[in-house]
């Protein structure tokens, strides 16, 4: 008997996901409902991670699976995007100037996309102006900056200062993350939140767009 999407995700059967999705599409299942189903499974994995039942390993594998889902199904949605599914918020995401590490950024991006955010991923080594330009182009509710080395603090701060100068800061929430960040860095940069944990970062962003949600350190 064929596996279900739930079985594939919860069993972390990464090699099965592509074939299963193709089968479902061939059967005429709506791609949007498939994405939604996968998002629900990702949310379950996120909960297991928060409860300590799952580890970073499971997040990495499930994120890779969800990437496959998006790559495969997005072009099949009307207009080539997730039309019909209104994102819960937009996140302009990047590794700031001076840093090229992207494991944490990418993981956060996929988990946030699975949680319903639209992600504008600018990539690595991003200068402050580019973050600000992206915010202007894509009126966004959140800016996410991830870095692994302390040398990026000034670049993060410059980005926040530039948002302030451009009169955008009040409308934007800023979250920073990555191995070398901490509360002192958050304070120095002028960000609204900081985390070392991609899943917690998503939870904080959900609070940003829906303050009635509890938890997190935002």
């Amino acid at each position, binding site marked *: 008997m064929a596996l279900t999407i739930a079985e594939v995700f919860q069993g972390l059967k990464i090699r099965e996901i592509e074939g299963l999705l193709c089968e479902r599409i061939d059967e005429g299942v709506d791609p949007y409902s498939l994405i939604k189903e996968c998002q629900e499974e990702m949310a379950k994995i996120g909960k297991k991670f928060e409860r300590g039942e799952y580890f970073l390993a499971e997040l990495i594998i499930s994120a890779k699976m969800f990437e496959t889902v998006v790559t495969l199904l997005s072009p099949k949605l009307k207009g080539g995007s997730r039309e019909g599914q209104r994102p819960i918020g937009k996140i302009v995401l990047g590794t700031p100037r*001076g*840093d090229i590490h992207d494991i944490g950024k990418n993981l956060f991006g996929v988990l946030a996309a699975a949680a319903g955010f639209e992600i504008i991923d600018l990539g690595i080594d991003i200068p402050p102006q580019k973050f600000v330009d992206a915010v202007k182009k894509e009126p966004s509710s959140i800016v996410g900056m991830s870095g692994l080395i302390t040398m990026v603090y000034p670049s993060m701060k410059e980005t926040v200062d530039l948002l302030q100068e451009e009169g955008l800061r009040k409308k934007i929430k800023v979250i920073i993350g990555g191995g070398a960040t*901490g509360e002192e860095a958050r304070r120095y940069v002028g960000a609204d939140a900081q985390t070392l944990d991609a899943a917690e970062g998503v939870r904080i962003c959900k609070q940003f767009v829906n303050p009635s949600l509890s938890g997190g350190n935002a």
Partner: protein
Amino acid sequence: MKGIERLRVCVSLEEIDRPGILPSYMDRFAALQAGLTFADILERPDETSAAMRRLWDRLGDWGDSVYYAGGTDIYYLAIKHLTRIRVPGKHLPRDSYWQILETPIIQREDYDLLIQKGWNAFTFEMIPRVWEIPPEEMKSYGTVEAYHKAQAEKSINQYRKDTEFWRQMGVDVFVGASVPSPQMALSCARSLTEYTLDLYEMPDKLEEAIWAAVPDLVQNGIAGCKATGIPCVAIILERGSGAYYPLHLFERFEFPQLKRMIEEFVTHGITPLLHLDTDWSKNLPYFKEFPRGKVIASLDGTTNIFNAKKILKDHVCLMGDVPASLLVAGTTKEVETYVKRLVEEVGEGGGFILGTGCSMPPNAQFENVKMMIDTCKSYAE
């Protein structure tokens, strides 16, 4: 009591008036304080080590020993972890930090070669994948083997020279060699994502490959300590913690190999210093199986060091863990408060060395570093 003797007392868990002090990887901080760039650190090792000695004097010493004698050898960093590195002055601006590229250097089919040949011969075959040997140097050395041998000699001679400078100043160097754990090395070589998939999809082959790396990694540590004359090996463990993998994977792919390495080093009179980045809280109870009073567990500020003390008290010397964020962006008062808590709680009864979480941030504030060190020193009787 001062110098390396104090650190030895800490490792052996004896009670002492104040903890030892051993901030790690001071080369980058010293270099930036001296106005050098990251490219200078790699290209001008003598100037970097001179900057370290000047910083030692400026701080009124920075501890009971020096962690590493000199600056960073980027060739060895790349070869040890089988990883490509973006190098300042070459791929990056001169004032940019060097950075490891997270791309797979080896493929699944390469595990067989490792199993067949062992770590060193395997690494040797991989050198061209991780390091571009400049054509003129290749022409001059003739073979990759000759080039590698020359780099090894250059590196060890530099380390000996820097160690001698410190000895002339009456300062000991604490770490004589460093090796990655096999899991760390393979995770870097495969990339984190691919390695994680291997763990789940081809565990038997991976386990065989990991065990195949152990004998050479042990020998490299022993040989490095012999060559420098310093009996302490740093074992780099950044990607195997309970934050990354469930304990059943740790029990199979990290712990038994690490335990074997530690036992071998201790048998040879070498102190293993575990460089434990990320959160190892779930793994700490296993560390009680290591030889008592012979091992240092260096934590990076992510593992709760205060809980670690409760678990490993009377068994493993803890080291750490003033966080990078605090040293760069905190106030001197915050640094003082945190260090006092470390000394009083983690240092209680002995078995603690004050250090930086992971490494000294290159852009740490001088006043914060001074406060970190002076606060700990103020406990001396």
